[in-house]
Protein backbone atom coordinates (compact mmCIF):
# COMPACT_ATOMS: atom_id res chain seq x y z
CA UNK A 1 0.00 0.00 0.00
CA UNK A 2 1.47 3.39 -0.89
CA UNK A 3 2.57 5.69 1.89
CA UNK A 4 3.07 9.41 1.47
CA UNK A 5 5.78 10.10 -1.07
CA UNK A 6 9.02 10.79 0.88
CA UNK A 7 9.73 13.63 -1.52
CA UNK A 8 12.26 15.54 0.60
CA UNK A 9 14.36 12.51 1.39
CA UNK A 10 14.24 11.13 -2.15
CA UNK A 11 15.23 14.49 -3.55
CA UNK A 12 18.08 14.81 -1.09
CA UNK A 13 19.40 11.29 -1.56
CA UNK A 14 18.99 11.19 -5.34
CA UNK A 15 22.48 12.52 -5.97
CA UNK A 16 24.60 10.54 -3.50
CA UNK A 17 27.82 12.39 -4.22
CA UNK A 18 26.18 15.75 -3.68
CA UNK A 19 24.60 14.49 -0.46
CA UNK A 20 27.96 13.18 0.75
CA UNK A 21 29.60 16.55 0.08
CA UNK A 22 26.74 18.33 1.85
CA UNK A 23 26.95 16.08 4.90
CA UNK A 24 30.71 16.54 5.01
CA UNK A 25 30.32 20.33 4.93
CA UNK A 26 27.74 20.35 7.71
CA UNK A 27 29.74 17.87 9.77
CA UNK A 28 32.77 20.16 9.48
CA UNK A 29 30.77 23.09 10.83
CA UNK A 30 29.29 20.96 13.62
CA UNK A 31 32.73 19.66 14.65
CA UNK A 32 33.89 23.27 14.78
CA UNK A 33 31.00 24.13 17.11
CA UNK A 34 31.62 21.03 19.23
CA UNK A 35 35.31 21.83 19.62
CA UNK A 36 34.72 25.46 20.55
CA UNK A 37 32.01 24.57 23.06
CA UNK A 38 34.16 21.71 24.39
CA UNK A 39 37.14 23.98 24.90
CA UNK A 40 34.94 26.66 26.44
CA UNK A 41 33.44 24.15 28.86
CA UNK A 42 36.91 22.76 29.58
CA UNK A 43 38.01 26.29 30.41
CA UNK A 44 35.30 26.67 33.03
CA UNK A 45 35.28 23.08 34.28
CA UNK A 46 39.04 23.00 34.72
CA UNK A 47 39.07 26.40 36.39
CA UNK A 48 36.77 25.18 39.15
CA UNK A 49 38.15 21.70 39.69
CA UNK A 50 39.79 22.80 42.92
CA UNK A 51 36.69 24.68 44.05
CA UNK A 52 34.56 21.60 43.57
CA UNK A 53 37.14 19.07 44.72
CA UNK A 54 37.61 20.31 48.28
CA UNK A 55 35.23 20.15 51.21
CA UNK A 56 33.79 23.41 52.58
CA UNK A 57 30.48 25.17 53.02
CA UNK A 58 31.76 28.74 52.94
CA UNK A 59 35.01 30.27 51.79
CA UNK A 60 36.73 33.43 52.97
CA UNK A 61 38.84 35.40 50.52
CA UNK A 62 40.09 38.86 49.86
CA UNK A 63 37.75 41.04 47.80
CA UNK A 64 40.75 41.76 45.57
CA UNK A 65 41.20 38.10 44.64
CA UNK A 66 40.75 37.54 40.89
CA UNK A 67 41.02 33.81 40.50
CA UNK A 68 42.62 30.81 42.16
CA UNK A 69 46.12 31.34 40.83
CA UNK A 70 46.03 35.05 41.61
CA UNK A 71 44.71 35.32 45.14
CA UNK A 72 45.26 38.27 47.46
CA UNK A 73 46.12 37.77 51.12
CA UNK A 74 44.00 38.65 54.12
CA UNK A 75 44.67 38.40 57.86
CA UNK A 76 44.62 34.90 59.28
CA UNK A 77 42.86 36.29 62.32
CA UNK A 78 39.62 36.54 60.29
CA UNK A 79 39.54 32.76 60.27
CA UNK A 80 39.79 32.65 64.05
CA UNK A 81 36.96 35.17 64.29
CA UNK A 82 34.82 32.91 62.14
CA UNK A 83 35.78 29.79 64.08
CA UNK A 84 34.00 31.20 67.12
CA UNK A 85 30.58 31.28 65.43
CA UNK A 86 28.11 28.74 66.75
CA UNK A 87 27.35 27.25 63.32
CA UNK A 88 30.99 26.70 62.36
CA UNK A 89 32.38 23.19 62.81
CA UNK A 90 35.97 23.88 61.73
CA UNK A 91 38.10 26.16 59.60
CA UNK A 92 41.19 25.59 57.46
CA UNK A 93 43.73 28.15 56.35
CA UNK A 94 45.00 27.76 52.84
CA UNK A 95 47.98 29.42 51.18
CA UNK A 96 48.20 29.59 47.42
CA UNK A 97 50.87 31.11 45.23
CA UNK A 98 52.47 30.42 41.88
CA UNK A 99 56.07 29.27 41.84
CA UNK A 100 58.46 28.72 38.95
CA UNK A 101 59.32 25.10 38.25
CA UNK A 102 62.58 24.53 36.37
CA UNK A 103 61.89 21.13 34.92
CA UNK A 104 65.24 20.72 33.13
CA UNK A 105 67.20 22.56 35.72
CA UNK A 106 67.82 25.49 33.37
CA UNK A 107 66.33 28.95 33.32
CA UNK A 108 64.96 28.48 29.79
CA UNK A 109 62.83 25.47 30.61
CA UNK A 110 60.34 26.38 33.23
CA UNK A 111 56.62 26.44 33.79
CA UNK A 112 54.42 27.89 36.47
CA UNK A 113 53.20 25.63 39.23
CA UNK A 114 50.58 26.57 41.79
CA UNK A 115 51.66 25.70 45.31
CA UNK A 116 49.07 25.17 48.03
CA UNK A 117 50.14 25.37 51.64
CA UNK A 118 47.99 23.64 54.27
CA UNK A 119 48.24 22.83 57.94
CA UNK A 120 48.90 19.09 57.83
CA UNK A 121 47.66 18.63 61.36
CA UNK A 122 44.32 20.36 61.28
CA UNK A 123 43.13 20.45 57.72
CA UNK A 124 39.75 19.58 56.31
CA UNK A 125 41.06 19.71 52.74
CA UNK A 126 39.46 16.56 51.40
CA UNK A 127 41.03 16.42 47.98
CA UNK A 128 41.30 12.94 46.44
CA UNK A 129 44.52 11.24 47.50
CA UNK A 130 45.80 13.93 49.88
CA UNK A 131 44.87 12.50 53.30
CA UNK A 132 47.43 9.62 53.46
CA UNK A 133 50.31 12.02 52.92
CA UNK A 134 49.34 14.62 55.52
CA UNK A 135 51.50 13.25 58.36
CA UNK A 136 54.56 12.98 56.11
CA UNK A 137 54.10 16.53 54.82
CA UNK A 138 55.22 17.79 58.22
CA UNK A 139 58.79 16.99 57.18
CA UNK A 140 60.74 19.96 55.82
CA UNK A 141 60.87 20.52 52.07
CA UNK A 142 58.35 17.86 51.15
CA UNK A 143 55.33 18.07 48.87
CA UNK A 144 52.90 15.97 46.90
CA UNK A 145 52.15 16.58 43.23
CA UNK A 146 49.05 16.43 41.05
CA UNK A 147 49.53 13.40 38.85
CA UNK A 148 47.41 15.06 36.14
CA UNK A 149 49.73 18.04 35.84
CA UNK A 150 50.94 18.96 32.35
CA UNK A 151 53.48 16.97 30.34
CA UNK A 152 56.44 18.90 31.83
CA UNK A 153 55.67 17.19 35.13
CA UNK A 154 55.04 13.74 33.71
CA UNK A 155 58.64 12.57 34.01
CA UNK A 156 58.65 13.42 37.71
CA UNK A 157 55.25 11.80 38.26
CA UNK A 158 56.26 8.64 36.38
CA UNK A 159 59.49 8.33 38.34
CA UNK A 160 57.62 8.90 41.57
CA UNK A 161 55.05 6.24 40.74
CA UNK A 162 57.92 3.88 39.84
CA UNK A 163 59.20 4.28 43.40
CA UNK A 164 62.12 6.57 42.65
CA UNK A 165 63.10 9.53 44.79
CA UNK A 166 62.10 12.72 43.00
CA UNK A 167 62.88 16.31 43.80
CA UNK A 168 61.41 19.47 42.29
CA UNK A 169 63.13 22.81 42.01
CA UNK A 170 60.44 25.32 43.04
CA UNK A 171 61.70 28.89 43.03
CA UNK A 172 64.98 28.69 44.93
CA UNK A 173 64.00 25.63 46.95
CA UNK A 174 64.31 21.90 46.23
CA UNK A 175 61.45 19.83 47.59
CA UNK A 176 61.11 16.05 47.79
CA UNK A 177 57.94 14.57 46.37
CA UNK A 178 56.16 12.10 48.63
CA UNK A 179 53.33 11.02 46.38
CA UNK A 180 50.56 12.13 44.08
CA UNK A 181 46.95 13.26 44.26
CA UNK A 182 44.32 13.81 41.57
CA UNK A 183 43.20 17.28 40.48
CA UNK A 184 44.02 18.25 36.87
CA UNK A 185 45.17 21.33 35.02
CA UNK A 186 43.36 24.37 33.75
CA UNK A 187 44.00 27.21 31.33
CA UNK A 188 45.66 29.20 34.11
CA UNK A 189 47.43 26.39 35.96
CA UNK A 190 49.96 23.98 34.43
CA UNK A 191 50.35 21.91 37.55
CA UNK A 192 49.85 22.00 41.32
CA UNK A 193 51.70 20.77 44.37
CA UNK A 194 50.52 20.65 47.97
CA UNK A 195 52.88 21.19 50.84
CA UNK A 196 52.67 22.17 54.52
CA UNK A 197 52.19 25.78 55.56
CA UNK A 198 55.76 25.84 56.90
CA UNK A 199 57.23 24.45 53.69
CA UNK A 200 55.08 26.95 51.75
CA UNK A 201 56.81 29.79 53.57
CA UNK A 202 60.18 28.21 52.77
CA UNK A 203 59.31 28.25 49.05
CA UNK A 204 57.95 31.79 49.34
CA UNK A 205 60.20 33.29 52.01
CA UNK A 206 58.70 36.75 51.69
CA UNK A 207 55.22 35.62 52.71
CA UNK A 208 54.11 36.94 56.09
CA UNK A 209 52.95 34.13 58.39
CA UNK A 210 49.88 36.04 59.50
CA UNK A 211 48.38 36.32 56.02
CA UNK A 212 46.46 33.58 54.23
CA UNK A 213 44.86 33.30 50.78
CA UNK A 214 41.77 31.23 51.43
CA UNK A 215 39.80 30.31 54.52
CA UNK A 216 37.71 27.16 54.23
CA UNK A 217 34.77 27.01 56.62
CA UNK A 218 32.77 23.89 57.37
CA UNK A 219 29.43 24.33 59.10
CA UNK A 220 27.75 22.06 61.59
CA UNK A 221 25.21 19.57 60.26
CA UNK A 222 21.86 21.26 59.86
CA UNK A 223 23.28 24.78 59.83
CA UNK A 224 21.68 27.13 57.30
CA UNK A 225 24.42 28.15 54.85
CA UNK A 226 22.92 31.47 53.74
CA UNK A 227 22.05 32.47 57.27
CA UNK A 228 25.60 31.62 58.45
CA UNK A 229 27.03 33.55 55.51
CA UNK A 230 25.00 36.59 56.53
CA UNK A 231 26.15 36.26 60.15
CA UNK A 232 29.79 36.03 59.11
CA UNK A 233 29.46 39.12 56.95
CA UNK A 234 28.18 41.02 59.98
CA UNK A 235 30.95 39.58 62.09
CA UNK A 236 33.84 40.41 59.78
CA UNK A 237 35.23 43.74 58.57
CA UNK A 238 35.28 44.55 54.85
CA UNK A 239 38.71 43.06 54.09
CA UNK A 240 37.21 39.61 53.40
CA UNK A 241 34.25 38.29 51.50
CA UNK A 242 32.32 35.16 52.43
CA UNK A 243 31.08 33.03 49.57
CA UNK A 244 29.09 29.82 49.35
CA UNK A 245 30.42 26.99 47.18
CA UNK A 246 28.17 28.02 44.33
CA UNK A 247 29.19 31.66 44.60
CA UNK A 248 32.87 30.77 44.70
CA UNK A 249 32.53 28.59 41.59
CA UNK A 250 30.50 31.33 39.88
CA UNK A 251 33.14 33.95 40.72
CA UNK A 252 35.88 31.88 39.12
CA UNK A 253 33.76 31.19 36.02
CA UNK A 254 32.84 34.86 35.78
CA UNK A 255 36.51 35.82 35.85
CA UNK A 256 37.38 33.51 32.98
CA UNK A 257 34.24 34.40 31.09
CA UNK A 258 34.40 38.16 31.30
CA UNK A 259 37.73 39.34 32.64
CA UNK A 260 39.80 37.29 30.17
CA UNK A 261 39.32 37.10 26.40
CA UNK A 262 39.51 33.30 26.45
CA UNK A 263 35.82 32.63 27.15
CA UNK A 264 34.86 35.22 24.52
CA UNK A 265 37.21 33.68 21.96
CA UNK A 266 35.66 30.24 22.35
CA UNK A 267 32.12 31.62 22.27
CA UNK A 268 33.03 33.55 19.11
CA UNK A 269 34.54 30.38 17.63
CA UNK A 270 31.27 28.53 18.24
CA UNK A 271 29.31 31.36 16.60
CA UNK A 272 31.67 31.31 13.61
CA UNK A 273 31.10 27.55 13.38
CA UNK A 274 27.36 28.17 13.22
CA UNK A 275 27.81 30.89 10.59
CA UNK A 276 30.00 28.59 8.49
CA UNK A 277 27.31 25.93 8.81
CA UNK A 278 24.60 28.42 7.84
CA UNK A 279 26.49 29.38 4.70
CA UNK A 280 27.23 25.77 3.75
CA UNK A 281 23.64 24.61 4.24
CA UNK A 282 22.27 27.68 2.47
CA UNK A 283 24.52 27.03 -0.53
CA UNK A 284 23.43 23.40 -0.64
CA UNK A 285 19.72 24.13 -0.30
CA UNK A 286 19.79 27.13 -2.63
CA UNK A 287 21.45 25.13 -5.40
CA UNK A 288 19.01 22.27 -4.70
CA UNK A 289 16.03 24.62 -4.96
CA UNK A 290 17.48 26.26 -8.06
CA UNK A 291 17.93 22.96 -9.85
CA UNK A 292 14.40 21.82 -8.97
CA UNK A 293 12.55 25.04 -9.79
CA UNK A 294 10.68 23.59 -12.81
CA UNK A 295 9.50 20.66 -10.65
CA UNK A 296 8.42 23.02 -7.88
CA UNK A 297 6.58 25.19 -10.39
CA UNK A 298 4.87 22.06 -11.70
CA UNK A 299 3.84 21.06 -8.19
CA UNK A 300 2.43 24.54 -7.60
CA UNK A 301 0.54 24.33 -10.88
CA UNK A 302 -0.87 21.00 -9.74
CA UNK A 303 -2.29 22.63 -6.62
CA UNK A 304 0.47 22.22 -4.07
CA UNK A 305 0.70 25.24 -1.80
CA UNK A 306 3.73 27.32 -0.90
CA UNK A 307 3.41 25.76 2.55
CA UNK A 308 3.96 22.29 1.08
CA UNK A 309 7.07 23.43 -0.79
CA UNK A 310 8.42 25.27 2.26
CA UNK A 311 7.87 22.11 4.29
CA UNK A 312 9.78 20.18 1.65
CA UNK A 313 12.81 22.45 1.88
CA UNK A 314 12.57 22.53 5.67
CA UNK A 315 12.49 18.73 5.84
CA UNK A 316 15.55 18.58 3.60
CA UNK A 317 17.28 21.01 5.96
CA UNK A 318 16.42 18.88 8.98
CA UNK A 319 17.57 15.68 7.28
CA UNK A 320 20.84 17.40 6.44
CA UNK A 321 21.19 18.55 10.05
CA UNK A 322 20.71 15.03 11.40
CA UNK A 323 22.95 13.45 8.77
CA UNK A 324 25.70 15.97 9.43
CA UNK A 325 25.35 15.76 13.19
CA UNK A 326 25.92 12.00 13.62
CA UNK A 327 29.41 11.75 12.06
CA UNK A 328 30.34 15.13 13.54
CA UNK A 329 29.45 13.90 17.02
CA UNK A 330 31.56 10.78 16.56
CA UNK A 331 34.51 12.76 15.21
CA UNK A 332 34.21 15.30 18.01
CA UNK A 333 34.40 12.46 20.55
CA UNK A 334 37.68 11.36 19.00
CA UNK A 335 39.03 14.91 19.02
CA UNK A 336 37.91 15.43 22.63
CA UNK A 337 39.81 12.32 23.62
CA UNK A 338 42.94 13.46 21.78
CA UNK A 339 42.74 16.95 23.26
CA UNK A 340 42.15 15.63 26.77
CA UNK A 341 45.18 13.36 26.53
CA UNK A 342 47.37 16.12 25.16
CA UNK A 343 46.31 18.86 27.60
CA UNK A 344 44.84 17.06 30.62
CA UNK A 345 41.86 19.37 30.28
CA UNK A 346 38.42 17.93 31.05
CA UNK A 347 37.24 17.58 27.45
CA UNK A 348 34.12 15.52 27.93
CA UNK A 349 31.09 15.08 25.71
CA UNK A 350 28.03 15.63 27.83
CA UNK A 351 24.50 14.69 26.81
CA UNK A 352 23.44 18.27 27.41
CA UNK A 353 26.10 19.56 25.02
CA UNK A 354 25.28 16.94 22.38
CA UNK A 355 21.58 17.86 22.61
CA UNK A 356 22.41 21.57 22.50
CA UNK A 357 24.61 21.18 19.43
CA UNK A 358 21.96 19.02 17.74
CA UNK A 359 19.39 21.74 18.43
CA UNK A 360 21.80 24.41 17.15
CA UNK A 361 22.49 22.30 14.04
CA UNK A 362 18.79 21.86 13.32
CA UNK A 363 18.17 25.57 13.92
CA UNK A 364 21.14 26.43 11.71
CA UNK A 365 19.88 24.21 8.88
CA UNK A 366 16.29 25.41 9.32
CA UNK A 367 17.43 29.04 9.17
CA UNK A 368 19.33 28.30 5.96
CA UNK A 369 16.24 26.53 4.68
CA UNK A 370 14.15 29.63 5.46
CA UNK A 371 16.44 31.75 3.29
CA UNK A 372 16.38 29.21 0.48
CA UNK A 373 12.58 29.04 0.70
CA UNK A 374 12.22 32.62 -0.45
CA UNK A 375 13.14 31.42 -3.92
CA UNK A 376 10.54 28.65 -3.73
CA UNK A 377 7.80 31.07 -2.71
CA UNK A 378 8.53 33.24 -5.74
CA UNK A 379 8.20 30.36 -8.22
CA UNK A 380 5.50 31.25 -10.74
CA UNK A 381 3.49 28.15 -11.65
CA UNK A 382 2.42 29.83 -14.90
CA UNK A 383 6.04 29.63 -16.07
CA UNK A 384 5.73 25.91 -16.70
CA UNK A 385 3.49 26.71 -19.68
Amino acid at each position, binding site marked *: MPRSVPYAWRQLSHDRLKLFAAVLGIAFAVVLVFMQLGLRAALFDSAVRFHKGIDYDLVLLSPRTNFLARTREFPRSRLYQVAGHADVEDVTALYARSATYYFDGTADTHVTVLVFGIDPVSTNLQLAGVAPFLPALRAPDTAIIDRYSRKEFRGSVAALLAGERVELQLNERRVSLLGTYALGTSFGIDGTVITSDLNFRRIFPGRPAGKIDLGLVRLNDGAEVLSAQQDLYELLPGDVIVLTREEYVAKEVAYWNSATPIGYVFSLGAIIGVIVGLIIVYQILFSDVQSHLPEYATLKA*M*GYSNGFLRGLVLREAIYLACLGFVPACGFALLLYDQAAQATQLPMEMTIARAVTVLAVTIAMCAASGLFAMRKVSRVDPAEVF
Partner: protein
Amino acid sequence: MRAVDVRDLDFSFPSRRQEQRVLERVTLHIDAGEVAVLTGPSGSGKSTLLTIIGGLRSAREGSVEVLGTQMVKARRRTLVQMRRRIGFVFQNHNLSPALSVAQNIQMGLQHSGNHRGKAAKQKIERIAERVGLADALGKSPEQLSGGQRQRAGIARALVNEPKLVLADEPTASLDKDNGAAVLRLFDELAEQGSAVVLVTHDKRISSSPTAFCRWRTGAWYPRRTCCCRMPAPRCAN
Protein backbone atom coordinates in the same frame (compact mmCIF):
# COMPACT_ATOMS: atom_id res chain seq x y z
CA MET B 1 -22.64 20.62 -17.85
CA ARG B 2 -20.44 23.60 -18.68
CA ALA B 3 -16.84 22.97 -17.68
CA VAL B 4 -15.36 26.26 -18.84
CA ASP B 5 -17.29 29.46 -19.42
CA VAL B 6 -15.18 32.43 -20.47
CA ARG B 7 -16.92 35.74 -21.17
CA ASP B 8 -15.44 39.05 -22.28
CA LEU B 9 -12.07 38.19 -20.85
CA ASP B 10 -9.40 40.86 -21.09
CA PHE B 11 -5.86 40.23 -19.99
CA SER B 12 -2.71 42.31 -20.20
CA PHE B 13 0.81 41.73 -18.99
CA PRO B 14 2.06 44.67 -16.96
CA SER B 15 4.92 46.46 -18.67
CA ARG B 16 7.10 49.45 -17.77
CA ARG B 17 6.16 51.44 -20.88
CA GLN B 18 2.64 50.32 -21.51
CA GLU B 19 0.45 47.35 -20.79
CA GLN B 20 0.84 44.52 -23.25
CA ARG B 21 -2.66 43.33 -24.08
CA VAL B 22 -2.75 39.61 -24.83
CA LEU B 23 -6.43 38.72 -24.62
CA GLU B 24 -9.24 41.06 -25.54
CA ARG B 25 -12.92 40.32 -24.93
CA VAL B 26 -12.48 36.58 -25.31
CA THR B 27 -15.54 34.42 -24.99
CA LEU B 28 -15.30 30.66 -24.97
CA HIS B 29 -17.47 27.81 -23.70
CA ILE B 30 -16.39 24.23 -23.24
CA ASP B 31 -18.78 21.64 -21.95
CA ALA B 32 -18.08 18.39 -20.16
CA GLY B 33 -17.29 15.70 -22.74
CA GLU B 34 -15.72 18.16 -25.18
CA VAL B 35 -12.17 18.44 -26.46
CA ALA B 36 -11.22 21.98 -27.44
CA VAL B 37 -8.07 22.30 -29.47
CA LEU B 38 -6.64 25.81 -29.32
CA THR B 39 -4.22 26.55 -32.08
CA GLY B 40 -2.74 29.66 -33.60
CA PRO B 41 0.51 31.54 -34.02
CA SER B 42 2.93 32.13 -31.19
CA GLY B 43 2.04 35.11 -29.06
CA SER B 44 -1.65 34.91 -29.81
CA GLY B 45 -2.43 34.15 -26.18
CA LYS B 46 -3.25 30.44 -26.26
CA SER B 47 -1.06 29.50 -23.30
CA THR B 48 -2.08 32.63 -21.40
CA LEU B 49 -5.73 31.65 -21.75
CA LEU B 50 -4.85 28.16 -20.54
CA THR B 51 -3.09 29.55 -17.46
CA ILE B 52 -6.08 31.75 -16.62
CA ILE B 53 -8.52 28.86 -16.99
CA GLY B 54 -6.17 26.74 -14.84
CA GLY B 55 -5.96 29.33 -12.07
CA LEU B 56 -2.26 29.90 -12.61
CA ARG B 57 -2.83 33.55 -13.49
CA SER B 58 -5.45 35.81 -12.13
CA ALA B 59 -7.53 37.91 -14.52
CA ARG B 60 -9.21 41.17 -13.47
CA GLU B 61 -11.62 41.83 -16.33
CA GLY B 62 -14.42 39.66 -17.63
CA SER B 63 -15.65 36.36 -16.32
CA VAL B 64 -13.96 32.94 -16.21
CA GLU B 65 -16.04 30.24 -14.62
CA VAL B 66 -14.30 26.88 -14.28
CA LEU B 67 -16.19 23.85 -12.94
CA GLY B 68 -18.67 26.28 -11.41
CA THR B 69 -16.10 28.51 -9.68
CA GLN B 70 -15.47 32.10 -10.70
CA MET B 71 -11.73 32.56 -11.28
CA VAL B 72 -11.69 36.31 -12.01
CA LYS B 73 -10.61 38.26 -8.94
CA ALA B 74 -10.55 34.98 -7.01
CA ARG B 75 -8.42 34.72 -3.88
CA ARG B 76 -5.13 32.88 -4.14
CA ARG B 77 -6.43 30.12 -1.87
CA THR B 78 -9.39 29.55 -4.20
CA LEU B 79 -7.08 29.35 -7.20
CA VAL B 80 -4.86 26.79 -5.43
CA GLN B 81 -7.88 24.69 -4.52
CA MET B 82 -9.18 24.89 -8.08
CA ARG B 83 -5.86 23.67 -9.47
CA ARG B 84 -6.30 20.48 -7.49
CA ARG B 85 -9.47 19.76 -9.44
CA ILE B 86 -7.78 20.23 -12.81
CA GLY B 87 -5.41 17.84 -14.57
CA PHE B 88 -2.43 19.65 -16.05
CA VAL B 89 -0.33 18.14 -18.83
CA PHE B 90 2.81 20.12 -19.51
CA GLN B 91 4.99 20.19 -22.58
CA ASN B 92 7.95 19.66 -20.28
CA HIS B 93 6.46 16.97 -18.09
CA ASN B 94 8.75 18.03 -15.21
CA LEU B 95 8.69 14.65 -13.53
CA SER B 96 10.92 14.42 -10.49
CA PRO B 97 13.93 12.24 -11.33
CA ALA B 98 14.27 11.48 -7.61
CA LEU B 99 10.93 9.67 -7.56
CA SER B 100 9.84 6.50 -9.28
CA VAL B 101 7.16 6.66 -11.97
CA ALA B 102 4.62 5.37 -9.42
CA GLN B 103 5.60 8.07 -6.90
CA ASN B 104 5.43 10.76 -9.57
CA ILE B 105 1.91 9.63 -10.42
CA GLN B 106 1.09 9.47 -6.71
CA MET B 107 2.01 13.15 -6.43
CA GLY B 108 -1.11 13.79 -8.50
CA LEU B 109 -3.14 12.36 -5.63
CA GLN B 110 -1.22 13.54 -2.59
CA HIS B 111 -2.57 17.10 -2.43
CA SER B 112 -6.11 15.76 -2.27
CA GLY B 113 -5.24 13.50 0.65
CA ASN B 114 -6.33 10.35 -1.24
CA HIS B 115 -2.84 9.09 -1.82
CA ARG B 116 -2.61 6.30 0.76
CA GLY B 117 -4.03 2.83 0.89
CA LYS B 118 -5.18 0.15 -1.45
CA ALA B 119 -7.57 2.37 -3.39
CA ALA B 120 -4.76 4.80 -4.22
CA LYS B 121 -2.53 1.94 -5.32
CA GLN B 122 -5.22 0.61 -7.59
CA LYS B 123 -5.81 4.06 -9.07
CA ILE B 124 -2.10 4.41 -9.85
CA GLU B 125 -1.91 0.95 -11.40
CA ARG B 126 -5.08 1.54 -13.43
CA ILE B 127 -3.92 4.85 -14.90
CA ALA B 128 -0.45 3.44 -15.56
CA GLU B 129 -2.03 0.61 -17.50
CA ARG B 130 -4.13 3.07 -19.46
CA VAL B 131 -1.08 5.04 -20.57
CA GLY B 132 0.92 1.88 -21.21
CA LEU B 133 3.31 2.21 -18.31
CA ALA B 134 2.16 -0.70 -16.15
CA ASP B 135 5.61 -2.27 -16.36
CA ALA B 136 7.46 0.96 -15.68
CA LEU B 137 5.98 1.96 -12.32
CA GLY B 138 9.12 1.10 -10.37
CA LYS B 139 11.45 2.79 -12.81
CA SER B 140 12.99 6.22 -12.54
CA PRO B 141 11.84 8.80 -15.13
CA GLU B 142 15.47 8.87 -16.26
CA GLN B 143 15.08 5.28 -17.46
CA LEU B 144 12.11 6.15 -19.67
CA SER B 145 11.99 7.34 -23.28
CA GLY B 146 10.64 10.81 -24.10
CA GLY B 147 7.26 9.37 -25.04
CA GLN B 148 7.05 7.31 -21.88
CA ARG B 149 7.86 10.35 -19.76
CA GLN B 150 5.13 12.34 -21.45
CA ARG B 151 2.70 9.51 -20.77
CA ALA B 152 3.85 9.40 -17.14
CA GLY B 153 3.12 13.13 -16.93
CA ILE B 154 -0.33 12.51 -18.39
CA ALA B 155 -0.93 9.70 -15.90
CA ARG B 156 -0.02 12.09 -13.07
CA ALA B 157 -2.52 14.62 -14.44
CA LEU B 158 -5.30 12.09 -14.81
CA VAL B 159 -4.88 9.91 -11.73
CA ASN B 160 -7.17 12.15 -9.69
CA GLU B 161 -9.89 11.75 -12.35
CA PRO B 162 -10.22 15.49 -13.04
CA LYS B 163 -13.30 16.92 -14.69
CA LEU B 164 -11.11 19.30 -16.68
CA VAL B 165 -7.77 18.57 -18.33
CA LEU B 166 -5.55 21.36 -19.63
CA ALA B 167 -2.73 20.25 -21.89
CA ASP B 168 0.01 22.44 -23.31
CA GLU B 169 1.64 20.95 -26.41
CA PRO B 170 1.18 17.42 -25.10
CA THR B 171 2.42 15.79 -28.32
CA ALA B 172 5.28 18.13 -29.17
CA SER B 173 8.02 15.75 -28.14
CA LEU B 174 6.31 12.57 -29.26
CA ASP B 175 6.58 10.53 -32.43
CA LYS B 176 3.56 9.74 -34.58
CA ASP B 177 2.47 6.59 -32.73
CA ASN B 178 2.94 8.01 -29.25
CA GLY B 179 1.23 11.25 -30.26
CA ALA B 180 -1.73 9.30 -31.59
CA ALA B 181 -1.91 7.27 -28.39
CA VAL B 182 -2.01 10.46 -26.31
CA LEU B 183 -4.81 11.89 -28.45
CA ARG B 184 -6.77 8.66 -28.09
CA LEU B 185 -6.39 8.98 -24.36
CA PHE B 186 -7.89 12.48 -24.44
CA ASP B 187 -10.75 11.22 -26.60
CA GLU B 188 -11.46 8.51 -24.05
CA LEU B 189 -11.42 11.06 -21.27
CA ALA B 190 -13.94 13.19 -23.09
CA GLU B 191 -16.11 10.16 -23.67
CA GLN B 192 -16.07 9.58 -19.92
CA GLY B 193 -17.35 13.11 -19.32
CA SER B 194 -14.25 15.22 -18.79
CA ALA B 195 -13.55 18.40 -20.70
CA VAL B 196 -10.15 18.63 -22.38
CA VAL B 197 -8.46 21.80 -23.60
CA LEU B 198 -5.39 21.33 -25.76
CA VAL B 199 -3.00 24.03 -26.87
CA THR B 200 -0.93 22.89 -29.80
CA HIS B 201 1.02 23.76 -32.88
CA ASP B 202 1.01 20.12 -33.93
CA LYS B 203 -0.26 19.85 -37.51
CA ARG B 204 -1.27 16.26 -36.85
CA ILE B 205 -3.92 17.51 -34.46
CA SER B 206 -5.05 20.53 -36.47
CA SER B 207 -5.44 18.39 -39.57
CA SER B 208 -7.29 15.66 -37.71
CA PRO B 209 -11.08 15.40 -37.65
CA THR B 210 -11.01 16.72 -34.09
CA ALA B 211 -12.75 20.05 -33.78
CA PHE B 212 -10.59 23.04 -32.92
CA CYS B 213 -10.63 26.76 -32.51
CA ARG B 214 -8.09 28.92 -34.28
CA TRP B 215 -7.41 32.54 -33.83
CA ARG B 216 -5.23 35.12 -35.47
CA THR B 217 -2.11 36.78 -34.21
CA GLY B 218 -2.61 39.25 -31.44
CA ALA B 219 -6.22 38.96 -30.53
CA TRP B 220 -9.25 36.83 -30.40
CA TYR B 221 -12.23 37.68 -32.45
CA PRO B 222 -14.36 39.89 -30.26
CA ARG B 223 -17.45 38.43 -28.71
CA ARG B 224 -17.18 35.29 -30.73
CA THR B 225 -18.18 32.09 -29.06
CA CYS B 226 -15.72 29.37 -29.80
CA CYS B 227 -17.45 26.16 -29.03
CA CYS B 228 -15.66 23.02 -30.05
CA ARG B 229 -17.72 19.93 -29.72
CA MET B 230 -16.48 16.44 -30.30
CA PRO B 231 -16.86 15.20 -33.02
CA ALA B 232 -17.91 18.51 -34.46
CA PRO B 233 -16.65 20.00 -37.70
CA ARG B 234 -13.87 22.61 -37.60
CA CYS B 235 -14.88 25.94 -36.31
CA ALA B 236 -12.03 27.83 -37.93
CA ASN B 237 -12.43 31.59 -38.01
